[in-house]
C-alpha cells in the first residue's frame, strides 16, 4: 500500500461525500436555516434593543452554530450505515482513520463553511460591531472543524442505535464546552477592542489535538458500533 494510494483514497472519499451532499443538497440547507431561525428568535424572546443584542451576540451565534452542527452530524455516517457502505469502508485496506478524516473534512466543507459564510449577516442582525466580525469568522474557521471532528466520535458511537439523536447531544455538547468558551470570549473581546490572540492560539491548539486524536477515536468507535 503506497502513500499515493492512501492519498487517492482520502480524496476519493472526500469527493464522494461532496458529490453525495451536492446530489441531496436540499438537506444541506436545513441546518443553515436552523442556524438563522434560532438566532432570529433571540431579539423576539429577549429584546430588540441593540445594546442587549450586542452583548448576547457572540454567545448566541456560537451556541446556534453548535446546535446547527449537532443537527447536521447525523448525516455523516447514517446513510452509509444504512446501506452498508460503512462496512465496506471498515473493510478497506486503508486505515479507517484516514477515511474518517476525509468524511469529516467533507462534512465541515458542507456545513461548517456555509455557517462561516453566513455569519457576517447574522452578526449584522445581532448588531455586532463591524470590527468584531472578522474575529467571529476566524473563530468559526478554527472552531468549526473541531465541532465536526469531535462530533464524528459521538456519531460513530451512536450510529448503530435506533434512537441515537438525543443521546448524541448528551455525549457531544459537554465536549464542545471549551470551544464555546474560547470562541465566544474571543468574539466578545474583539467587540470590546481587547486582544484575542490567546484565545485563538488555544482554539488552534484544540484543533491540532482534535485533528490528531479524533479520527482515531472515531475509527475505533465505528468498529465497535458495526459489530
Amino acid at each position: 500500500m503506497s502513500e499515493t494510494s492512501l492519498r487517492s483514497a482520502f480524496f476519493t472519499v472526500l469527493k464522494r461525500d461532496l458529490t453525495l451532499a451536492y446530489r441531496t443538497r436540499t438537506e444541506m440547507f436545513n441546518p443553515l436555516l436552523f442556524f438563522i431561525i434560532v438566532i432570529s428568535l433571540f431579539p423576539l424572546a429577549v429584546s430588540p434593543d441593540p445594546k442587549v443584542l450586542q452583548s448576547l451576540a457572540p454567545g448566541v451565534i456560537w451556541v446556534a452554530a453548535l446546535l446547527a452542527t449537532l443537527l447536521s452530524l447525523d448525516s455523516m455516517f447514517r446513510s452509509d450505515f444504512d446501506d452498508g457502505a460503512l462496512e465496506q469502508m471498515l473493510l478497506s485496506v486503508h486505515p479507517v482513520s484516514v477515511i474518517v478524516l476525509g468524511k469529516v473534512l467533507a462534512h465541515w466543507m458542507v456545513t461548517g463553511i456555509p455557517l462561516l459564510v453566513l455569519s457576517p449577516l447574522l452578526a449584522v442582525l445581532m448588531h455586532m460591531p463591524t470590527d468584531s466580525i472578522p474575529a467571529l469568522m476566524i473563530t468559526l474557521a478554527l472552531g468549526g472543524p473541531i465541532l465536526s471532528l469531535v462530533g464524528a466520535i459521538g456519531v460513530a458511537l451512536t450510529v448503530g442505535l435506533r434512537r441515537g439523536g438525543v443521546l448524541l447531544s448528551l455525549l457531544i455538547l459537554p465536549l464542545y464546552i471549551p470551544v464555546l468558551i474560547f470562541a465566544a470570549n474571543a468574539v466578545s473581546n474583539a467587540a470590546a477592542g481587547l486582544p484575542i490572540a490567546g484565545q485563538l492560539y488555544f482554539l488552534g491548539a484544540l484543533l491540532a489535538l482534535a485533528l490528531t486524536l479524533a479520527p482515531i477515536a472515531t475509527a475505533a468507535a465505528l468498529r465497535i458500533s458495526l459489530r
Partner: protein
Amino acid sequence: MSLAQNLPDSSSDTPAKLEVKGLTCIRDDRVLFRGLDFSLEPGQALQIEGPNGSGKTTMLRTLCGLTLPSDGEILWNGEAIEDVRPEYMAAMDFIGHAHGIKKELTPLENLQVALAMADTNPNQSLEGVLEKVGLKGFEDVPAITLSAGQCRRVALGRLLLSKSILWILDEPFTALDVQGQAQIESMLVNHVENGGMVILTSHHPLALKDGMLKTINLRP
C-alpha cells in the same frame, strides 16, 4: 458465458489459507453456533446453510472481522486476522446483505469508490466490468433509478475489479433474475476453479465438483 472469462487471476503464488478454530458466537444469551472448526484453501468453496436466524450472517461478518467472536479464533495463513488486518483486507472481499451501493451515485462512481478503498489497479476498465455484469448503458445513471437486482449486479461487479482471493458473500443471488443468477454462479465457480476461495450463504446449490464444495449446516 461472458462473465466466466477474463477473471482476474486470483490464484497468484501467494499461499492462502483460512482456518477457523472453535468459533463460538453467543448473542443475547442465545448460542448461534459453538465450537465450529473448519479450514478453507484455494480452490474450495464453503456454503453455509441454515434456517433464518441461525446465525449465517453473523458468521460471515465474524469471518470478515466485523463482528467479534465470543470465543475461538480465525486465522489467515496461520495468523489471527486482527494481527494481519491489512493483508487480510487486501485478500478478502465481502458483500453483505446491505451491499453498500450508494443510490445517489452512478454505477461507475460506485465502482470508483470501491476501487479506491481496495487499493488495486484493475486489469480491466470499469466500463468493461459493468458490461460484464449486464449493465451496459447504465454507467452514468444514478443508482436510484436501477432495480434492486441491478444494484446487486453493481455490487458483484466489485468482485471482478478486485484481486481478492477470498470472497465472502451473504446471499449473493438475492434479487437477481434467473439469467443473473446463472451469470453470478458461473462467476463464482470460475473463481474457485481458478484457485479462489468463496464463502457464501445461500440455498442455491453451486455446480462445483466433489471435494471443492464444503457445507456447514447451522442448526438453531
